[in-house]
Every structure is written in C-alpha cells, then in structure tokens.
C-alpha cells in the first residue's frame, strides 16, 4: 500500500466517518451473531405497536420488535455481503491474474469467454435460475451474486496484471527465473491490492443492494431476517399506515450503504482509481 495514499486516506473525513459507521454496524452484526442482540424468535406480543421507548420502531404483524429484526438484518447483510465479496474477490483475483499473466493465451481467451457469458446473463435472472437449481434460500443468493460479481474484479485485475506484467521489475523477476505463481503472488497481486480493496467495497454494496431486490422478488434469503425481507413485508404494511418496517430497514440499509460508499469514495480518491470502466 502506498504510504502517501494511506496518509491521505486517514486525512479524509469521509473515510473516517464511513469507517466509524461501518465498524459500528459490524459490531452490531457481531453482537447479533453471538446472540447478544436481535430477536429471540418469540411472537405474540401486540401487533402494529407504534414507536415507543420499548420498541423504537414499533412492532410488526407478528408482534415482534421491528428494531430487533432490523438489527438482525445487519448480521444477514454482513454475512451475505461478506461471503459474496470474499468469493468474488478470491475468484476475481485468481482467475483475473491467471488471465492477465498471459493475455492472448488460450487460458485468457477462455476466461474472457466465461466472463462474457456470465456478464450477459442479467443478475436477477441468474439468481432466479440458481435459486431454483439450488433449492432457494441464502446459499443460492450468495452463489448467484458471487458468480455475477467476480467478473468485474477479474477484468480489473486482469488489466492491472497485464499492465504490470511488462513492467521491468516483473521482467527482472522473470529474468532471474522466479516461477510465475510466485511472481504473481509476490509482485503483482500486492500491487493490485488497492484495486481489490475498492472492488471489495463496491462488491459489498452491490451485494447488499441486490439482496434487497432479490428478497423483494421472492428469491432472496428466507432462512434469516434480512432488510430485503423487511422491505418486502413493508410493501404490504405501508398502505395500512404502518411505516415501522420500512423506516427501520431502509434506515439501516442506508447507513450501511452510506458507510461503504464513503469508504469506497475515499479509497478511490486516495489510490487515484477511477470508475471509467463500463
């Protein structure tokens, strides 16, 4: 990581604010994971309560505390976002680097073809298809998004590796006979780390947004409480004048996305990355 860039990062107000907010939400997600926060599964309280000290966003149709559920949604968002991001980054970095190492090779052609195919299938349709193929639920959603999202990272890494590959320090390493995986691992990928960082944040955002829409479409995660699920529920509540579900889910969703976007922004600024790729 370039030290000047890191310094600039820490000077950025957006980064500090975004990171703080993100960490706070991550802490909530962790607490939910440990069972310290979030709903206990009980039902049967009075339904449709308004906001109160006991229920910050009121209760839902089942009489559950809406805020508790929204907090639980944070865990889902981090789990889905995190897994998708991890999967997409690992796939993207490895396959992208493999393709970029020998642009024009058979492997590269095959990778480009594969990416072309995956990019041509709209995400919702791919998610739907996988939901059916894998029997629905969170696993399908995560798989679908990973399959859709890794290509963006792979293309960038491929480009960066191809660009760095002709750099002289790589040629030097090659000239002394270092094996290719070592060169890629030691010299190329670390130099593309900033791309991975930014792509990670972008993928996280995309994953969360997509999960919300997939949930609304009825092909999202259903095993656990998610913001998408709450928003989908809220479309039924809204016109009955119950805004709790909508407010809680969209607020937390907005906060997490804001945190991630601010961080992405600061990262892009610091590392001088531009979103000029289509």
């Amino acid at each position, binding site marked *: 990581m370039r030290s000047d860039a890191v310094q600039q990062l820490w000077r950025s107000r957006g980064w500090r604010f975004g990171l703080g907010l993100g960490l706070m939400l991550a802490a909530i997600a962790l607490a939910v994971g440990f069972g310290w926060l979030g709903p206990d599964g009980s039902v049967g309280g009075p339904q449709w309560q308004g906001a109160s000290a006991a229920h910050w966003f009121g209760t839902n149709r089942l009489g559950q505390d809406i805020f508790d559920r929204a907090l639980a949604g944070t865990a889902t968002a981090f789990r889905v976002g995190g897994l998708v991001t991890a999967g997409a980054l690992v796939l993207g970095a490895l396959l992208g680097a493999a393709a970029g190492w020998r642009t024009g090779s058979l492997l590269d052609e095959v990778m480009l073809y594969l990416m072309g195919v995956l990019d*041509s*299938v*709209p995400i919702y*349709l791919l998610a739907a298809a996988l939901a*059916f193929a894998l029997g629905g639920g969170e696993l399908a959603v995560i798989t679908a998004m990973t399959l859709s999202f890794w290509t963006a990272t792979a293309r960038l890494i491929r480009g960066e590796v191809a660009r760095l590959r002709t750099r002289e320090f790589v040629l030097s390493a090659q000239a002394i006979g270092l094996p290719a995986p070592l060169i890629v691992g030691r010299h190329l990928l670390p130099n593309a780390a900033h791309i991975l960082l930014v792509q990670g944040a972008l993928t996280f955002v995309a994953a969360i947004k997509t999960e919300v829409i997939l949930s609304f*479409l009825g092909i999202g995660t259903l095993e656990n409480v998610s913001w998408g699920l709450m928003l989908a529920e*809220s479309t039924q509540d809204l016109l009955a004048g119950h805004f709790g579900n*909508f407010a809680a889910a969209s607020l937390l969703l907005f906060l997490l996305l804001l945190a991630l976007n601010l961080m992405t922004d600061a990262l892009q600024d610091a590392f001088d990355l531009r979103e000029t790729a289509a």
Partner: protein
Amino acid sequence: MSLAGYLLRRLVHGAALMLGVALLSFTLMVQFGPDQTFELLGKNPTTEDIETVRENLGYDRPFLMRFGDWLSHTLRGDFGVSAANGEPVGPLLGRAFPITLALVLPGFLIGNVLGLLLGMLAAWHRGGAWDRLVLGGSVAGLSLSFLVIIIVLQLLLCTPYGLNLFPTRGWRVDGLGSYFYYVTVPTLALITVSLGYNTRFYRAVILEELGREHIRTARAFGAGGGELLFTHALRNAAVPVLTRLLYSIPLVLVSGSLLIETYFGIPGVGKIAFDAITSGDQAVLLAIVVLTAALFVAVQLLADAGSRLADPRLGSS
C-alpha cells in the same frame, strides 16, 4: 486485418457467446430448474397423470436431446410457449418490448444527460464547493436502494398519502398526454437511482480527460473552459461513455425494468421476466436470457464500431 475478417471473427465470437449463455441458462433453468409437473396437475393426480405430464414436458428425455431440440427451435425463431398461459413467447415479448423501451428510455436519457452535466460541473471545480456538493449528493444517492426509491416515490406522487397525481400502476398509453401520465414516476425513479452512478462516472471520465497533457497544450494555446469540456474532454471521453451507454442498455432493459414494471404493474419485458421467475416459466426465461445475450453481442459490435469511429487510433490498426 480486413473488414470481412473482422466481421467474421466478431460473428463467430458472438455466436460462441450466445451458445455459452444458452447452454448455461438451459442447464440451470431447465435441467436443474423448477419442476412444472405439479403445477400442471389437477387436485388428485394419479402416478399415471404425473408420468403423462412429465412426458409432455419432456422431462424424461436426455439433456442433450432437450437442449438440441430447444436450440433448433430457437434458431428457427421459435421460442416455444409460455408455461404461464400457453402463449407463444415470440409475440409475448414482441408486445412487451416496445412498452419497456418507451418506459425506460426517458429515464435513461435524462439520467445520463443530467449525470454528464453534473459530472462536468464537479470535474471543472474539482475539490471545490460544487464538487463536494455533487459528490456528496451522489454518495447519498448511491446509498439508496432502488426499491426504497420506488416505494417512496410511489407513496409521495401516486397515493392519497402524498400528491396523488399519477397512477400507481398500469400502462394505458394512447397519446402523448397519457404517456406522460404513466411514464413520469417510473422515469423519476430511474433518474434517481442512476444519477449517483452516472454523475460519478462522468465526473471521473471528464476529470481523467481534463488531466491529459493535450488539455494543457490546448489551454496554453488559449482554449477556454467550454471548449475544453465540450470539445476536447467530451470528444475524447467518447469511447468510455459510448461503451458504458451501450453496455447499460441490456441491463436497463431487463434488470432495470424488472423492478419498475413489477411495482408499477406495467406489462413490459421486466414484468414478464418477473412473472417467469416467480412461476419458473422456463421458455420465457430462456428466451429473455438468450435475447439479452444477443443484445449484448449487438451492443458489443456497436460499441466496437462506435469506438472505432470515435477514436482514430483504434480505427486504423
């Protein structure tokens, strides 16, 4: 390389891509796809009934045969019939496509033009108050979910809880007036959701172009802001801009319209796709996927040709 050779290569590429997409989606959607059998059975089916339906659906045949069959039909332009209502898929999509186009086009165009102007404003005042304002706005915009935007806009503009000016759903367009009546709120939603992305993209592109050495030369020889932005920067940015515009067309048409049309009950491609998703209507889904891939291939060709026109460096090689 000769033009014919180039076109041939492109065509082979396109065909290979579509074949891949078809194979992938067929495998996922048909081979591992939802089982229609039980939805087509009555209340008290016998095992014999189940067999018959499975046979009629072709479930008992080997994968390659089914794929081959479907492929040969598709190649002849026959996409089969929708499992939802037995309607041939071709006319079904043919009817829906113009609606979707009319629905998303204004939002797409306005969103991009507005994004371009805002992006230029921010890039020109890089680091200044305008830049911060535009960037802040776009970060906020990026952090809004499309679903939330649609819900809020509908609540504000289409219901008695808000202004109640526009219809909540439907598409009964028979003139300019009714067109505006139905298209306004979806357009606003599309603009809102895309503006953040567009502005940042255009800002980045223009900024990159403004940082080029030749811009400095042009300035050194007296070129002013308008000329730099609208002549040099824009013209040089033509390739990424064109590429992005073209590549977003398939996405906007299918993914973008999906939510809008579902929520506003507009019988376009997106709604059809949604219905097909929720009911597992494979013929329709496959047709949509393959046509989207075809659109991608066409878009690739266009983007390539456009880039060659826009950038003389590409044209001559």
